[in-house]
């Protein structure tokens, strides 16, 4: 979920515009492929005994990690969203795919992961397609409606999935103390990845309602106006 962009009439240099069309198109293709792989897994149940994670692992890691570029885009000013908000959103995604899903097999292949993948793929396919078409000012009303309506179910579903995956990963970090810094050490500093994960999960409590209501406000503004045209 990204903060809504302003109207297409932004002053973007041509190289920046071309780059962004290119970037968003690649992401659109990548996430469409992931959506296809997910549907393929559900429809054709028995694929050499591979799990859903094994089916989507590589493209998921690649394309979701690629979203880190979006923080750079904001910082450089070629996209209008807030750098801090985009950082928070990309951070939560990268946190889920690397230290949670990639690192901890227990976090995969349960309902949480399925929810997460469903929410992310559908959302991102819509989002990146919207961005591409927006950059050439050719957004069909139906796409706009989808982008600002599907989130109503997908956003809570995705958050539920993310929290479930985090929860499943907790015991691994509690037992192995991986990525943690323990005492004694010269600077008397500690870092406990288990507690850090709990902190990230708790952060959803204040942040999710704000972002969710923000999307509703955006929906009213953008879809509400269209009705009057």
């Amino acid at each position, binding site marked *: 979920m990204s903060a809504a962009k302003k109207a297409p009439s932004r002053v973007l240099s041509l190289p920046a515009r071309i780059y962004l069309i290119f970037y968003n198109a690649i992401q659109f293709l990548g996430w469409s492929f992931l959506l296809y792989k997910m549907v393929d897994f559900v429809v054709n149940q028995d694929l050499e005994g591979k799990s859903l994670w094994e089916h989507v692992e590589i493209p998921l890691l690649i394309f979701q990690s690629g979203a880190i570029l979006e923080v750079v885009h904001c910082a450089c000013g070629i996209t209008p969203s807030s750098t801090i908000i985009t950082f928070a959103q990309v951070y939560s995604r990268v946190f889920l795919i690397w230290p949670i899903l990639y690192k901890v097999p227990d976090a995969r292949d349960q309902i949480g992961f399925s929810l997460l993948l469903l929410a992310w793929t559908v959302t991102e396919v819509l989002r990146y397609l919207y961005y591409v078409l927006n950059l050439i000012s050719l957004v069909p009303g139906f796409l706009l409606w989808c982008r600002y309506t599907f989130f109503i179910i997908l956003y809570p579903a995705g958050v539920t999935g993310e929290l479930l995956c985090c929860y499943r990963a907790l015991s691994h970090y509690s037992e192995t103390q991986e990525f943690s810094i323990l*005492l*004694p*050490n*010269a*600077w*008397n*500093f*500690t870092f406990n990845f288990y507690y850090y994960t709990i902190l990230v999960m708790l952060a959803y409590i204040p942040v999710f309602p704000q972002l969710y209501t923000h999307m509703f406000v955006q929906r009213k503004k953008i879809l509400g106006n269209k009705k009057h045209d």
Partner: protein
Amino acid sequence: MEIGILSTSGGKQLATLTVDPNSTLKELKTQIHRLKSHLYPDRQEFRQEPRGKGLDESKTVAALGLKNHSKLYLKDLGPQVAWKTVFLTEYAGPLFVYAWIYQRPWLFYGEGAANQPMSQVAHIAAYCWVIHYTKRILETLFVHRFSHATMPVRNLFRNCAYYWIFAAYVAYHVNHPLYTAPCQMQSYIALGFWTICELGNFSIHWALRNLRPPGSKERRIPRPTKDPLTLMFNLVSCPNYTYEVGGWVAFTIMTQCLPAGLFAFAGFYQMAVWAIGKHRAYKKDFKDYPRGRKAIIPFVF
């Protein structure tokens, strides 16, 4: 004459007040409080435009150019809490939290932690911490003169969270059974520096208190007094913050504890923001404000 009072949110007419030209806004606030019992005066802010600046309540209706049937906007500042209350609560927390964790409770360290040896510097750190926050509480009660009476209640929770959580964070590490003390020389020198900074910080608070006699609204440029620690005024606009940061840096070096350093940095960041604001205000208000004075770090910024 009659003044219409409109809400800043929505512009709804809240009341019509009958006033004299010499009535102060403070008196108007009392009138509104009588009409709407939940809007005590500290919660009210008058503005001439819905999004305009808050008006000084000591100003009179006439001084603001208001006539019969003029309109004033009223903003509800939300539930308020006295500044003193906020300060006392936010400082009492660190005192009790650190003192509690200093006992090495099983909740944080497991059973038997209290029986393990504790380094001398961990003891000294606890005394420094308690002295620092006791000093803050006493200054709140007896030294500081607050220019505002109240602040929004949500600030109470936000400020307390900051102080209390950081107190637990620092205390947990310094009092830990596996805490490693730095060399004694380092700790003693840092302790000396800390002491100077605490005395310096107090000197500045005392000097600022005496800068303006009680009841007066006169603003004056702060200058060094007979106390040599106030010579810092020659170098910075906010030497109280300079000494405060110095104290926490000293505490960090004394304990060689990175969490304490993070706390020092967080405090420094906030105080730098405040100092820069104050510094700009001084320069704007006083044409003869001494050049060469920086905001918070001498010679730097």
